């Protein structure tokens, strides 16, 4: 049973001054599932991401990833252990090519970053891997484009590609469909499902679009005013009166 848990959060709190953005949150994420974290705006979802992935230090509580305590580790060490993340705001390397965006992550994963004299273009294995990732994302034709020239939806895919390229055991996506048109959202959702099926990576995501959440998540956590309000299967969450109240009704049926 313990082995099934990949990420375990114990009594996690994060305060900014006197304001607690996260209050004593405890939750466990199971390996090989798609877990969603939902909650109204300002519920503390992004803060939760930033604390778990090492951007902020928690005020109290513990975080265990694959049985190992990562509570106060810096971001790059947490990433190295196999906990990847993407960002709500597109956070890619805009002036570099699409291929270079993915390559940077591969260089890090394969520990070639301190190779100073061998040309990047002589690492055929890394280039091949980058191309297969871009192919999976449907971006192969755009490999040589400067990232800033991509359409918004494609930039979001590059974001996912960077996160995938470091071979994570678990990946945390922060609102992967934020700001997308319905078509782009559909493409992103099917991409996440494909990646999940092909790689078996544990997915954790926040999402404001309830239709997306209920269609792909195996398990859902609800955050409200910094505290965990409910957890369960999509069916259980849909019928939970406390959750309905937190969302002021209506929007859950969207």
């Amino acid at each position, binding site marked *: 049973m313990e082995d099934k848990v990949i990420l375990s959060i114990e009594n996690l709190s994060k305060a900014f001054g006197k304001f607690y953005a996260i209050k004593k949150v405890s939750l466990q994420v199971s390996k090989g599932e798609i877990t969603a974290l939902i909650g109204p705006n300002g519920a503390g979802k992004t803060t939760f991401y930033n604390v778990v*992935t090492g*951007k902020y230090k928690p005020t109290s509580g513990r975080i265990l990833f694959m049985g190992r305590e990562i509570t106060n580790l*810096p*971001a*790059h*060490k947490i*990433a*190295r252990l196999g906990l*990847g*993340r993407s*960002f709500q705001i597109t*956070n*890619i*390397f*805009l*002036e*570099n090519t699409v291929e*270079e*965006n993915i*390559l*940077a*992550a591969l*260089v*890090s*994963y394969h520990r*070639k*970053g*301190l*190779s*100073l*004299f*061998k*040309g*990047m*273009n002589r*690492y055929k294995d*890394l280039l091949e891997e980058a191309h297969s990732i871009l192919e999976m994302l449907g971006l192969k034709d755009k490999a040589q484009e400067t990232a800033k020239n991509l359409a918004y939806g494609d930039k979001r895919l590059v974001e996912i590609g*960077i996160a995938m*390229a*470091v071979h994570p055991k678990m990946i945390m996506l922060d609102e992967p469909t934020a700001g997308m048109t319905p078509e782009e959202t559909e493409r992103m959702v099917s991409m996440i499902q494909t990646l999940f099926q092909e790689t078996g990576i544990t997915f954790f995501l926040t999402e404001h679009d309830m239709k997306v959440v209920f269609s792909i998540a195996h398990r859902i956590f609800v955050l409200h005013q910094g505290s965990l309000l409910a957890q369960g299967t999509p069916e259980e969450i849909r019928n939970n009166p406390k959750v309905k109240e937190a969302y002021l009704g209506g929007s859950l049926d969207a």
Partner: protein
Amino acid sequence: MKGMAKIGVLVLTIAFLFLFPQFAGAFPVLFLTEIIIFSLFAMSFNLLFGYTGLLSFGHAAFFGLGGYAMALLAQHYHISMIPSLFISMVVAGASAAIIGFFCIRRDEIYFAMLTLGFGMMVFTLVHQWRSLTGGSDGITGFEVPVLDLMVKKFQLFSPWSFYYFALVVCLIFTLFLWMVIHSPFGLILRSMRENAERVSFIGIDIKFYRWIAFIIAGLVAGVAGGLFAMYDRMASPSMVHWTMSAKPVLMTILGGSRVFFGPVLGALIFYLLEHTITQYTQSWMIFLGAILIPIVIFFPEGVLGTLISWGKRFMKGAGHGG
């Protein structure tokens, strides 16, 4: 096609640089030597600025320390050229390792201020430590070390022979910087320039990488400084002054920070302007400022960067037309 054009320009430029002294007098040769040395200095600065996204206002510290190391070695120890230059490089690199250790803890304006602060400390140290550095007089009156290439020894007294030596050294270190920039390490640097936070989330210790970049930039600046002290037959506090730190900044902005040879063209323009304008007035900085302002406003990519953009657009236009 594009690659061929680039290689063609590069080969012609290098050929010109090697042939130039054959038909030029002492003054043009000296003038070009200084441009070549400052090109290397500016390129070393641009590894941090254009490629890593760190604006240093204290890069002259390493240029100057390389220069002082070189002058002290020439004055007291009389060892030959290559070992002297190597020691100067190591002195500059070791200083960069220490100063960089503190500076890379912050980025953006805070990094710039830290480098400026350390630069001023180095200047004060050099200026005050009379017994070692000669204070405001600097170090002069030494002989240029002999270039000992095992099979043959060369005297570097004449402007021509020193020109060739400086040219070869600068070409070697230009190649070195080019390789670093095109390596996986270079890709990580460019990614940090774009988005340092994202780089840490792919598992890279950004402070460590910035530190390595800082040390490499310091090493190469030390070589340029060592060459300059030999060229000038002098190591003086002006070499570590903050106005000296401003030179690679200005040259790089003039030429273009996102193009590898941008700082080289910048150095050339800087010296040509200085030479032309100082024939008419001593306050040439006013005119340099008047030229820099429109460049920054209208051509933020610098002269070379803008030319390359235009070239690309022209090629695209021609492609559509045909």
